[in-house]
């Protein structure tokens, strides 16, 4: 079996000021989408916006004009309920026109409340049922080995902490380490909440980093809102070992808006017009 050699990347320092500005714009976009459509999962989107920004504007080897290129890095939003966040990311990154965001949840549209299959450029897999993204990511990562064409793309799966409740996640985790899928990276958006309760009071995840490590992964805790650190961490995958990499990204649900942060009501609530104005002010948006 051929081994994928680690990609040698230029010592490429992320432009943190630019990434922060980009992330603020995405936050503004999803807050607006939630307000206009009354959509749930806003807080889940806000907790992973910095990770998405670091990935799509720094770490990923992608070309929005070639969304199915064989050599592209794959990014799978396994926490499909953060659909607004991936739609906003893909639109702002140029995968499709920003106007399309206006059709979100509209009758007859392509942008449903969970990402669809075979409908939008940049959506690698339809997700929404939790625990599906990592097995599919395994398939993408293993394909690089099977096809024996010297493929050196990486595969990223962004999961929620609640998603780690699913048994299929741990089936997939053991498969990835057994097959030494060093081109595979999981990011857990560890915001400590699931839909209706604290994660660790529901099913015990803690110690989460050690769990992934004991499943045969190189596992690291990172600050999921230190956008420069996330960008560097993701860019450096694979890390030179033969193991898949897991980043346990400590995050805050509702991050970026003071009155949403760590308040789980925002798992389902949508902001009023007044709250949108306040939130945009806090984010430094006009």
């Amino acid at each position, binding site marked *: *079996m*051929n081994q994928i050699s680690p990609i040698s990347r230029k010592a490429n320092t992320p432009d943190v000021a630019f990434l922060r500005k980009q992330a603020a714009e995405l936050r503004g976009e999803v807050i607006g989408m939630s307000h206009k459509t009354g959509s749930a999962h806003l807080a889940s989107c806000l907790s992973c916006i910095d990770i998405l920004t670091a990935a799509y504007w720094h770490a990923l080897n992608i070309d929005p004009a070639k969304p199915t290129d064989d050599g592209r890095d794959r990014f799978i939003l396994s926490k499909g309920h953060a659909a607004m966040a991936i739609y906003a990311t893909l639109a702002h990154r140029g995968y499709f026109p920003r106007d399309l965001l206006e059709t979100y949840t509209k009758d007859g549209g392509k942008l449903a409340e969970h990402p669809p*299959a*075979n409908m939008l450029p940049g959506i*690698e*897999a*339809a997700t929404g*049922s939790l*625990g*599906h993204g*990592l*097995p*599919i*990511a*395994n*398939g*993408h*990562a*293993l*394909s690089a*080995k*099977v*096809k*024996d064409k010297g493929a050196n793309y990486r595969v990223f799966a962004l999961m929620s902490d609640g998603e780690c409740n699913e*048994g*299929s996640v741990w*089936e*997939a985790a*053991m*498969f990835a380490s*057994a*097959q030494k899928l060093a081109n595979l990276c999981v990011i857990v958006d560890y915001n400590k909440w699931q839909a209706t309760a604290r994660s660790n009071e529901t099913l015990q995840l803690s110690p989460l980093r050690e769990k992934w490590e004991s499943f045969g992964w190189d596992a690291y805790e990172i600050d999921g809102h230190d956008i420069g650190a996330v960008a560097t961490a993701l860019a450096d995958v694979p890390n030179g070992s033969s193991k898949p990499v897991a980043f346990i990204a400590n995050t805050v649900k509702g991050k970026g808006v003071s009155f949403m942060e760590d308040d789980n009501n925002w798992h389902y609530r949508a902001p009023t017009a007044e709250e949108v104005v306040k939130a945009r002010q806090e984010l430094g948006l006009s």
Partner: protein
Amino acid sequence: MRNAFADELTKLGDDDERVVMLSGDIGNRLFDKFKDKHPTRFFNCGVAEANMTGLAAGLAMNGLRPVTYTITPFVTTRCLEQIRTDVCYHDVPVTVVAVGAGLAYAGLGPTHHACEDIAFLRALPNLVVISPGDAWEVRAALRAVMKQEHPAYIRMGKKGEPKIHQGPIENFQIGKAITIAEGRDVCLLSHGNMLPEAVEAGKLLEAKGKSARVVSFHTAKPLDEACIAEALNKFKLVVTLEEHSLIGGFGSAVAEWTVDNGCDTRKLMRIGTPDKFFKESGEQEHARERLGLTAHQIADRVIAKLS
């Protein structure tokens, strides 16, 4: 059937480097030849069918042709949502191959029986559902589904079943039933591993003065509608045979078609397993006997219905 599957898959793998074999920790030595010839394209995925199926979808998204394989309930109902969402919703060419249709593994108990899988899988969009009638049909069906760009389910018996066809089936088509014997009085539509019982029942009927057409109706989806229409038009009685529940299986599919197309439902008789778990120990022959699925019992029921 399973040896034919392993052999045919090896040949397919020789000709097509996209073929990837995924086993759910089953088939000890069965895939030795495939592994020898294609070591980089065989993966024992362990006892982890959800991952195996999602993995297969991911491989197929990258242009590969994965096959998932283990005992029927584990490769179908255990990972039903992965088949539905990852494979069928994305409409990717994954082939799910099950060993141990119906009561083939009767002796292993109801955990290993599979009398509900067709009902579940037939409802999934984009999925072809085939139950081959013998080893030759396994080979032909596998070749046919691996050529298409869509998902498929192949439901096999186990090993050592009688061969009904004389050799390779040259003109096998998905959704096109195969007439095994011609007849005038009754038409037996056999799905999957019931084919040897159907053929035998045909002979028993002949001996009792009733002439039976015997059809290997291998594809439950898409249905061979012309075959059903012609049978309902020509025969006084059309009988569906399957080692699967009467709820939702092949017989249900034919009944749905009959109703939807305004045909005479009184001509239709369905033979399958009851809405019960079969809890007795004993092998397949015993289970069939107890559930009225042997050739003799089928022939007797047909005679009673015809008279």
